[in-house]
């Protein structure tokens, strides 16, 4: 598998990472996702990493880079379903992913995206 599928759900993009990330895969995802946000005018990106069991500093940084890029393209990023072991590893690596929103599962992540989109519309 050399690509991670990106699904479109309404105005949001859904990325589920089902395999262990290696560096090239992460770089490809970064490329694909940015072009997809532009092409589909998505307002939010939801990254589900509940199947991800191993992270290193590169992948950690990649996640926060993707969030940063999405923000520049006016799409909010929510990372959902992080495993306890992964969370502990990232904290120990000193990567607390400042500026990335998180939620426990896809359901709550979707609600979060929807809520922030609603809040924007209300203004």
């Amino acid at each position, binding site marked *: 598998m050399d690509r991670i599928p990106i699904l479109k759900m309404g105005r949001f993009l859904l990325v589920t990472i089902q395999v262990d990330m290696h560096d090239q895969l992460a770089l490809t995802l970064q490329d694909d996702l940015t072009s997809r946000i532009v092409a589909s005018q998505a307002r939010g990106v939801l990254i589900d990493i509940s199947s991800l069991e191993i992270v290193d500093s590169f992948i950690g940084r990649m996640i926060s880079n993707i969030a940063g890029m999405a923000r520049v393209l006016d799409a909010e990023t929510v*990372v*959902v*379903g*992080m*495993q*306890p072991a*992964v*969370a*502990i590893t*990232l*904290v*120990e690596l000193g990567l*607390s*992913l400042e500026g990335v929103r*998180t*939620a*426990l*599962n896809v*359901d*709550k*992540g979707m*609600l979060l995206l929807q*809520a922030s989109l609603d809040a924007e519309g209300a203004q």
Partner: protein
Amino acid sequence: MASGQVLQQIISKTQKELLAEWLQTQAADGASRPDLMKESELREQSREFLSLLQDALRVGELGNVAGSAWSPVHEFLAGISRSRAIQGFSPGETATFVFSLKKPLFARLRREITQDAQALADELWATTLLLDQLGLYTTDTYQKTREEVIARQQQELLELSTPVVSLWKDILALPLIGTLDSARTQVVMESLLQKIVETGAAIAIIDITGVPTVDTLVAQHLLKTVAAARLMGADCIISGIRPQIAQTIVHLGVDLSAVTTKATLADAFLIALKRTQSTLPKGAAG
């Protein structure tokens, strides 16, 4: 050189009398504790030890107690040291069990070898060496058993002292009691994150009323826990900050501005209730 043959013969020839005499010596030396162990049990143990010793002497070398021929004896001694450590014998009393065998054995050796002073000295030396080694082995095992007990208790204490409590739907509380060191933080973090996964909680309240002192290291540990919970998608509130601790935190220059802090658990609970209702729209169950 003493071969152990003489010793073995003595034991096999006079096993009954030797056993009786040994039990008497044990009683006199204070190795038997009638309050902790029944006399019949002690007799059984002593008898078994004598027969194992005899077997080992028959096949094994006297000078090589570490050899495989001696392993049944070692196993037996390890068993009784372990059980005695748990029954409440002192290490001295446990070792005396073996040492008290010297008196009756030496008396018999002296009676057996009457002619040759050199041979008697050799036999006595070899026997005393053997029994010393076996006695020390019981002390070693006794010590090890006690250390295992202490380690297990520490582990239990560690787990006991970090319960994660479900306060309300989507709200967890983590009352911390005792000093936070790295090992403890690890356990706290793991149990909190695990509970977040299980319950799907959105807010965790870390209550530090029971933490006696907060220094930079403890604060760093707290912040790590908060960061890890945030990565999982749960917010943390730190509560139970006593006035002195608030002063120390500011004096140390610890920055807790990234975390919501409250003076009491009640205040934290109130704000948690408000937040879960406002951030989760109706019908957002689970």
